[in-house]
């Protein structure tokens, strides 16, 4: 099993994701330069956080036209796993691999802080090792994480269980105060219809070792490994 971490010009959480997968968890992992077109070696891809192309124009908008993205579409069609973290999520939205778009945080500031998240759906290849409704602590760090989608789209996401993570308070309630950026329905992470593309604003790779204050993020990667190993949850 091999993970690939895509490196766009301006990616800056690439080495963090690589470190967790390779050094902390111990699964084979390689960087994938954004001009690469052959992804056949990999079973799972990480689109990491950062500022691809400086996040100029709109976050993720320019990265979407990187050569690797053609292959990413095919990779997704083949049912392999793709996780987009922060900027990676923004790229997935711009690329149309997930629905919706990101607006500026309603606080109009970059926000780096810990948040509480409720795991809404554990029947995904990215969250199968969490308990349903479990509240986890994960950091965010972004300026544009205010998720927006048209009402019909939101309704469908909710109805089909595709809202995977939601910002909540310490006791698990999705309150306005617990929403750090104004995201619709307190959405922090969503999955595509097929269930193999996951985008989230929080950074699980920043909380996968106890020395960093929480290991709550590690199970995202472990879930991916488990579902790749067992083939469960993969259509």
């Amino acid at each position, binding site marked *: 099993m091999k993970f690939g971490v895509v490196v766009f010009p301006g990616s800056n959480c690439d080495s963090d994701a690589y470190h967790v997968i390779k050094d902390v968890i111990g699964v084979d992992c390689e960087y994938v330069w954004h001009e690469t077109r052959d992804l056949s070696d990999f079973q799972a891809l990480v689109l990491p956080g950062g500022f691809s192309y400086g996040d100029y*124009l*709109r976050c993720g*908008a*320019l990265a979407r*036209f990187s050569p690797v993205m053609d292959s990413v579409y095919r990779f997704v069609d083949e049912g392999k796993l793709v996780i987009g973290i922060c900027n990676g999520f923004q790229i997935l*939205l*711009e690329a149309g691999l997930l*629905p*919706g*778009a990101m*607006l*500026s*945080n*309603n*606080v*109009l500031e970059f926000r780096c802080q810990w948040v509480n998240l409720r795991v809404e759906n554990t029947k995904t290849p990215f969250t199968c090792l969490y308990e349903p409704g479990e509240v986890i602590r994960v950091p965010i760090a972004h300026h544009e994480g*205010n998720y*927006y*989608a*048209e009402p019909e789209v939101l309704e469908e996401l909710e109805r089909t269980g595709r809202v995977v993570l939601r910002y909540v308070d310490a006791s698990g309630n999705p309150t306005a105060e617990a929403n750090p950026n*104004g995201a619709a329905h307190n959405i922090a992470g969503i999955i595509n219809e097929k269930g193999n593309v996951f985008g989230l604003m929080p950074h699980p790779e920043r909380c996968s070792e106890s020395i960093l204050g929480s290991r709550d993020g590690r199970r995202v990667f472990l879930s991916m490994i488990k579902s790749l190993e067992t083939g469960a949850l993969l259509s």
Partner: protein
Amino acid sequence: MKFKGTVTVWLKEGIFDPQGAAVKGSLEAMGFKEVEKVRIGKNIVISLDAENALEAKDLLEQMARKLLANPVTEAYRVHVEEEKAGAER
């Protein structure tokens, strides 16, 4: 021929524009009570070569659709004029 295209991009009506709201707040605090609404958009000025204005406009439309505006949240308008030599911008 050289053309100067301007693609104006703005948030669709109905989508809250926090930046616009903040600017409105600041303007009010500065004493501009007359302000009713503020919306902030982008103004992308592109100098380009084309056979004629029609072709220029068509190219700009394509750029706007594919890249410059996000169809989920943004609307755009394209304007083209011939580049005046030595124009200020």
